[in-house]
C-alpha cells in the first residue's frame, strides 16, 4: 500500500475512533494482503504526527495507544462548547444499561429481545467509552457476538458494592407507572443515592 493511502486510512481511523488506538488495533484495520509491517505503520504514524504539527490537534501517544487531541491552547474557546448544558443520556441508553446490569452477560441480540427495539451502536459505544460496560467474552454462535457486562466503574458510579445491592426485580415491578419520568427534568440534588437495600430507603430519596 502506498504511503499516502496508508496515512489517510490511519488518520481516518484516529478521527473516527475518538479514543486511543493501539498499534495492534490499527494493524487490525487492514486485510492480510494489504497489512503494513509494524515498523512501516509506526513510521507512518510519525509522519502523521509531523503532518499535524502546528495544527488544531496533535497526535499524541498515551497508555492506550495513539490519539488525536485538540491542543490545550485552544481550550478557552473549545471549552465553551459545553459550558451551557450538561448532557443527558437518552432513555434508550438507560434501558440498555439496566438490561446489561440485570441480565449480564448479554449480547446485543439479547438486549434487543428484552427491549423489543434495536440497540444502536452509538449507545453501546457511549457505554463502553464511559467505562460502564465491557466485553467479557463472545457467544459461540454464528457471528460470535460480544457478551457485555458491567464494570467496577459502573458500581462505583451508582455507589454499589456489588450487583447484589441492586434491588430485586419484584421491587422494580412495583415502581408505579406514574413514577416514570418520561422526559422529566433530572432531580437536581442527590447525585448519590443511598444503597438501595431496603425498599423504604429508596422511596425516601424519591420524595
Amino acid at each position, binding site marked *: 500500500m502506498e504511503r499516502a493511502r496508508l496515512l489517510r486510512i490511519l488518520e481516518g481511523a484516529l478521527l473516527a475512533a475518538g479514543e486511543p488506538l493501539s498499534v495492534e488495533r490499527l494493524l487490525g484495520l487492514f486485510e492480510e494482503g494489504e497489512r503494513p509491517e509494524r515498523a512501516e505503520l509506526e513510521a507512518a504514524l510519525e509522519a502523521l504526527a509531523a503532518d499535524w504539527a502546528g495544527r488544531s490537534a496533535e497526535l499524541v501517544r498515551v497508555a492506550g495507544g495513539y490519539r488525536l*487531541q485538540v491542543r490545550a491552547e485552544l481550550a478557552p474557546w473549545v471549552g465553551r462548547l459545553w459550558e451551557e448544558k450538561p448532557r443527558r443520556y437518552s432513555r434508550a441508553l438507560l434501558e440498555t444499561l439496566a438490561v446489561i446490569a440485570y441480565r449480564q452477560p448479554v449480547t446485543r441480540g439479547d438486549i434487543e429481545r428484552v427491549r423489543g427495539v434495536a440497540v444502536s451502536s452509538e449507545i453501546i459505544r457511549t457505554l463502553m467509552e464511559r467505562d460502564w460496560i465491557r466485553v467479557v467474552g*463472545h457467544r459461540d454462535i454464528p457471528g460470535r457476538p460480544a*457478551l457485555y457486562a458491567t464494570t467496577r466503574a459502573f458500581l462505583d458510579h451508582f455507589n454499589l458494592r456489588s450487583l447484589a445491592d441492586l434491588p430485586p426485580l419484584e421491587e422494580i415491578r412495583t415502581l408505579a407507572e406514574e413514577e416514570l419520568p418520561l422526559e422529566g427534568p433530572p432531580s437536581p440534588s442527590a447525585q448519590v443515592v443511598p444503597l438501595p437495600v431496603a425498599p423504604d430507603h429508596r422511596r425516601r430519596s424519591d420524595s
Partner: protein
Amino acid sequence: MPLAVVRGKAITELPKDLYIPPDALEVILEAFEGPLDLLLYLVRRQNLDILEINVAEITRQYMEYIEMMRALSLELAAEYLVMAALLAEIKSRMLLPRQAEAEEEEEDPRAELVRRLLEYERYKKAAEALDSLPRMERDLFPARAEPPAPRGGRPEPVVELRELLLAFAGVIRRAELRSAHRVHLEPLSTRERMSDILAALEARRLLPFTALFPRREGRAGVVVTFLALLELVKEALVELVQGEPGGLLHVRARAA
C-alpha cells in the same frame, strides 16, 4: 415427497409460472412486505406495466401464493386475505356487462388497485434510495479528537440509580405486555459472577476449575460460583473439560 398439501391435494411440484427454488420457498414467501408488494412482484415478473395489469391472471397467481403460504403454515397477515377478496371482486366486476348509461360514473374496477400499486411502488423505490444514501455509522463517521484537557473535559452526565431502575421498570412492563410470560432473573450475585468468570477466561483461555473458588469467600462464595458455572454451562458459554478420567477439571470459554 410433496412440497405442500393444498386442499387435501399434495403438491409435488410448483406451478411452472411460480417457479422458485424449492429450498428458498419459505424465505421468498416471507420476504414480501404485504399484499401490494406481492402483487407488484407478480406484475413485474411478467414484465408488465402496472397499467396493463390483467386482473384475472394476477388473481390466479396471487391465490396460488396464498395457498402456498397457508400450506406451509406461514403466518399470513389478514391484509393478504382482504386483498384476495378485493381481487375476486374486481375480477367479477370486470366480467359483468356494463350498462351504457351507467358507464359514465363507473370507474374501471381496476383503477383503485392500480393507483395503490403505483403509489406503493414509489415509496418502495424511495426506501431503496434512502437506504443507499451514505449515512452515519455505516459509511461516514464523525471526525473527533479528544477535547483539550483544562476546561474541555466534557462533563459526563450524572445518572441516578433511581433513573436507571425506572428505565428498567419500563422495559419489564413492555416485555411483559409483548409476551405473556413474566421476565425472570437469576439472583444478581450469580449474574455478576458469570461475568467475572467470563472476564477471567478472556485473559486466560483455560482455567483450572479450582482456581474459580477463592478460599476467602467461604461457603457462600462457593455456592455463588458454582451456580454461575452451571448457568454458564447451560447457556453454552463455557465448557468443563477433563484431560483424562479423574484428571483435573478445567473451564474453557466456548467461543474460540
